[in-house]
């Protein structure tokens, strides 16, 4: 492979945000950004091995009909790649073992969590220990949220950030863990990368609407212990330009680049430094 940062965004079966995620990757300087329909991966024409940065974008995989991303997780785990011995899941686990980056946003985060890719305590990427379920309010909501970043987190995407302001757009965003010890371990290892917070990014908040869904410990996103796999409910690709900000017409000091772009910038820098 030439010295190119190669990013892929999977589309199909209800993924909706593939175009704007691909755009964010491009703006962050990825040299190759492909939107690949899952059918192309299953046909064997496209392979995850050819990329460094896998994006699982927001949407409603299979309509979230069996619970958010459940049917999608089932497909990735079982669907065979044509003319090969592998399933897509085999390619995915090789991708992780190769030290590459995965970011799941919203439905992508739900997918990663339900497949066991996050938080993957102890490096076990096949055992589910947390989930995302219905917002306490029982409804889908589109709302901008303040996120306090855990600066001690190993997450490579949030490196150098203290806070983020991004929109959530989900009905099933409440982060729930299997038991208290899972939560303790997530906290102890600083895997709860982003938490819903007050507007000054001072402390996590449990109250609606700052915490839009009632997530345990106000968790909005988590990473694995390597920091290379990251999932979050808020949409970083929805704030990559100042005109995305809900108050850009009244806050002239907002920079041209939106906050969400930093996550993609960090991913691309990491790949240049560590993987090329």
């Amino acid at each position, binding site marked *: 492979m030439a010295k190119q940062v190669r990013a892929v965004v999977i589309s*199909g*079966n*209800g*993924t*909706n*945000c593939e*175009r*704007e995620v691909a*755009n964010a990757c491009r703006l962050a300087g990825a040299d190759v950004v492909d939107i690949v*329909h899952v*059918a192309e991966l299953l*046909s064997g024409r496209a392979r995850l091995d050819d990329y460094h940065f896998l994006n699982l974008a*927001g*949407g*409603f995989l*299979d*309509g*979230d*009909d*069996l*619970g958010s991303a*459940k*049917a999608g997780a*089932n*497909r990735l785990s*079982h*669907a*065979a790649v044509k003319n090969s011995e592998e399933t897509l899941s085999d390619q995915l686990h090789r991708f992780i073992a190769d030290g590459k980056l995965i970011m799941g946003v919203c439905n992508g985060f739900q997918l990663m969590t*339900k497949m066991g890719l996050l938080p993957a305590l102890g490096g076990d990427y096949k055992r*589910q*220990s*947390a*989930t995302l*379920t*219905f917002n*306490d*309010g*029982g*409804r*889908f*909501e*589109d*709302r*901008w949220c303040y996120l306090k970043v855990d600066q001690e987190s190993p997450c490579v995407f949030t490196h150098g950030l203290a806070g983020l302001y991004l*929109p959530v*757009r989900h009905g099933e965003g*409440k982060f*729930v*863990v299997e038991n208290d010890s899972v939560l303790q371990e997530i906290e102890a290892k600083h895997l709860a990368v982003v938490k819903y917070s007050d507007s000054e990014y001072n402390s996590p908040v449990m109250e609606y609407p700052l915490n839009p869904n*009632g997530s345990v410990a106000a968790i909005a996103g988590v990473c694995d212990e390597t920091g290379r796999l990251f999932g979050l409910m808020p*949409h970083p*690709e*929805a704030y*990559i330009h100042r*005109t*995305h900000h*809900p*108050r850009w*017409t*009244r806050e002239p000091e907002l920079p041209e680049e939106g906050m969400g772009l930093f996550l993609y910038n960090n991913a691309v820098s990491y790949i240049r430094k560590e993987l090329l």
Partner: protein
Amino acid sequence: MAWRIVVGLKDNVRDARGERVRREIREHLGIDLQSVRTIDVYTVDAQLSDEEVAAAAAGPFSDPIIQDYAINQPLAHNFDVLVEVGYRPGVTDNVGRTAREAIQYQTGRSFASDEGVYTSVQYLLSGKISTDDAERIARDFLGNGLIQRWDIIARAGFDSNKGVPVTVPKVTSTVKPAIRPVDLEISDEDLMEISRQGMLALNLEEMKAIQSYYRQDEVIASRKEVGLGAMPTDVELEALAQTWSEHCKHKIFAARIEYEDDQGQQEVINSLFKSCIMQVTADVRKAKGKDDICLSVFKDNAGVIKFNDDWSLVYKVETHNSPSALDPYGGALTGIVGCNRDPFGTGMGARLMFNTDVFCFASPFYDKPLPPRLLHPRRIFEGVVEGVEHGGNKSGIPTVNGSLVFDERFAGKPLVYCGTGAIMPRVLNGQPGHEKEAKVGDRIVMAGGRVGKDGIHGATFSSEELHEGSPVTAVQIGDPITQRRMFDFLIIARDRGLYNAITDNGAGGLSSSVGEMAEFTNGFEMHLDRAPLKYAGLQPWEILISEAQERMTMAVPPEKLAEFSALAEEMGVEIADLGEFTDSGYFHCLYNGETASYLPMEFIHNGVPQMVLQARWTPPVHQEPVFSLPLDMNATLRQMLGRLDICSKESVVRRYDHEVQGGSVIKPLVGVTNDGPSDAAVVRPLFDSFEGVVVAHGICPSYSDIDTYHMMANAIDEGLRNYVAVGGNINHVAGLDNFCWCDPVASEKTPDGEYKAAQLVRANKALYDYCLAFGVPLISGKDSMKNDYMIGGTKISIPPTVLFSVIGKIENLRKAVTMDAKAPGDLVYLLGQTRDELGGSEYYAMHDQIGCNVPHVDASSAMQRYRTVNAAQDEGLLASCHDLSDGGLAVSLAETAFAGGFGMDIDLNKVLVDAAMREDKLLYSESASRLLVTVKPASQERFETLFAGQPFACIGQVSSDEYLHVAGLQGEALIHSTIDDLKEAWQSPLREM
């Protein structure tokens, strides 16, 4: 054999869905339950092993962190009454479809055609519940008898070992499909009986036109050649009824209308559609010359205008009123995903970019007895909002603009307007993207969902005639995921040039889509037996006119069929080759090789006799009301802000994803705390350009009670001033007219038909006059003409309503302006003159009055103002800009202030008037074409220079305190309220919806 898999939340997990159901049962039915918990049920009817079923239950069907499951035994415990709600046979079950696919992925085997997974939901109700209450909860809230069935089991009657018995809602049918001849050589009464019985909705004149067609010798001879007798087949009669229906042929808009106005002036109008709608577009285009923006108008599924040199914009707005009245959720869901197919099926196909929705309901707090068969407005509100939410969000299309309008008469029929905008390349594979042409020899290919009895004969069916196993036909439920897969596939097929033409299957199904596309070649030959079916037992005519959703029809050149088909298979989309386009001149359908229809294209498309309507305009008589000036104008303002037409719709807006696709620039909610009411949406469709699409609308049915001419004029003006407020270029904008009327055909049932027809004429006259004056071409539209409720002696007719939607452009979206006040010290200007025009206003409505001084629109003055506003925006002179509509100046001031988080000092003496007026009239007049803007003091001089010579006035200043302070005509403190109090009054009414 069938298994029942039940999946429930673990006891320590909060059941947010159950809590919401409990809350809503209290709101809707006034029954206060202790708790509601929910359990999902999957009935798996397929050849599987116990292990395979267990793997499905443990895998895709349940979440081990929060859920437990059981197979063939219950999870339900600790309840007083259990209600299980499932679908009737044949109703689209999206979750069941996904569950079936999940098992197929797990086992690697496909289900047989008669195997399936069926879903239902158990509601475990705790509390004191009488049998009557349980029945009400099931019937009036949890279930909808048209599409669902339910079991109610009290705790005492519940078998804790076996649970609820297995029910498999499979469609069963012993019907043998056949083509049947229909004898039309019968009396007039019998002809009408055929029309009524068969739900053909054809009138006697139309039935007789069909009768005489079949009497012609040459017709009989040509039918003989294809093996048909002299009598029409049922397939032919159904195809004619579909094509000639009001829905497809717009017979009222095409009618010859003999109109007489109140001065006794008589006039004959030959088609309102041609003489008003098409004519004004032609006249505007001619006047604009090289600046004409239209590319494709009135000939395709949606209208197309230029965006820039490389891209075109496509826009269509639909209504889905009757289905939403019967099943609010399914009707509205189908409305939006159905509307999506129109722009997608325009030209060679377009990428969907945004949705809009406008709903007209009766108050959700309606507390009077409802006539039979009407659903409570609150239930309609809930269901419609959720249907559009699922349809839009799941399809990945942002809902960027909308409205909620309330009037008691919408209890009789809610109006559900759904719009979809899209973008397409100006040139595709060397051809204009907005054009298409099926060619002789092209294959007729259907893609997407399968054909069922869905939507046959629309909403006229009666549920009593159904037997247990018969599928429900009237109500359809959209399936956004099947449609999304189809769109993903078709956009690739489009870019690879794999088809010559595309259209959607909506009303009239294949009959309409193939019949219309075949006008390119003048004929087709289609094999109805080749259409994939959801279940066996469909008659050939049912296949032809089924409105089963998620289907598109393409004309695929034979040499590209293999590639088209391979791509479809790889992307998991089902397609079927149904036949070919010919130049035979005939609408030729076959079933198992036998001719089922053989009708000349000319007769089916142009054979319908023109309707003749009488219209007589007698202006209604209203008085201007007399009441004293309210003593407490603060209370009056709060009361106005809390009116349903004015108050915040945030609870609804937040349920729609308005940002997906990454192009959201001006959102529906703006201001310092992201909750002020935006005038219009700005969307950035291209990541590499700062050109923006601007979307807005106007709707004001309350003025129809005085004169529909001014209702129409105001709707157009409202749409344009909202559009201009955010920065939309007034020279680059197109309109869409969506008429929703009550039946205007005079009859025994409609004794005031001549008046209603005159109302229609007057609205169309205004449409012509004002679109011409504003230079706005109409590019698409729709009419829905029978929005009446009539059962027994009760008739409810909606107020005549036109939604005027606009789409256009802002050259540089970084210059867009929002409505919130930006900084203390900014000057507040009112653009336009305020007159004594409160007829049909919110203020009069609050006093239960109509009045007669309906606002008149002065288009030339408005046009000059809008152009100057554009110039001021371009120079960056406007800090904020907000339109004045329902509730006039006072409401606009309050909204601008609290959205910005600043107070204002306003002097009513400064407001520009044509004659002295009482203070409440100054505050609440709804005179048209007015805008409230704030301007930085540094820009004052330039701003005033730009507007010199036009009616405008500086009426005050944005203040640094939290008071909206309005000084009255004597300088007294007329209004002195904190913006928090005003905002609370504005936010509270629908906050909990």
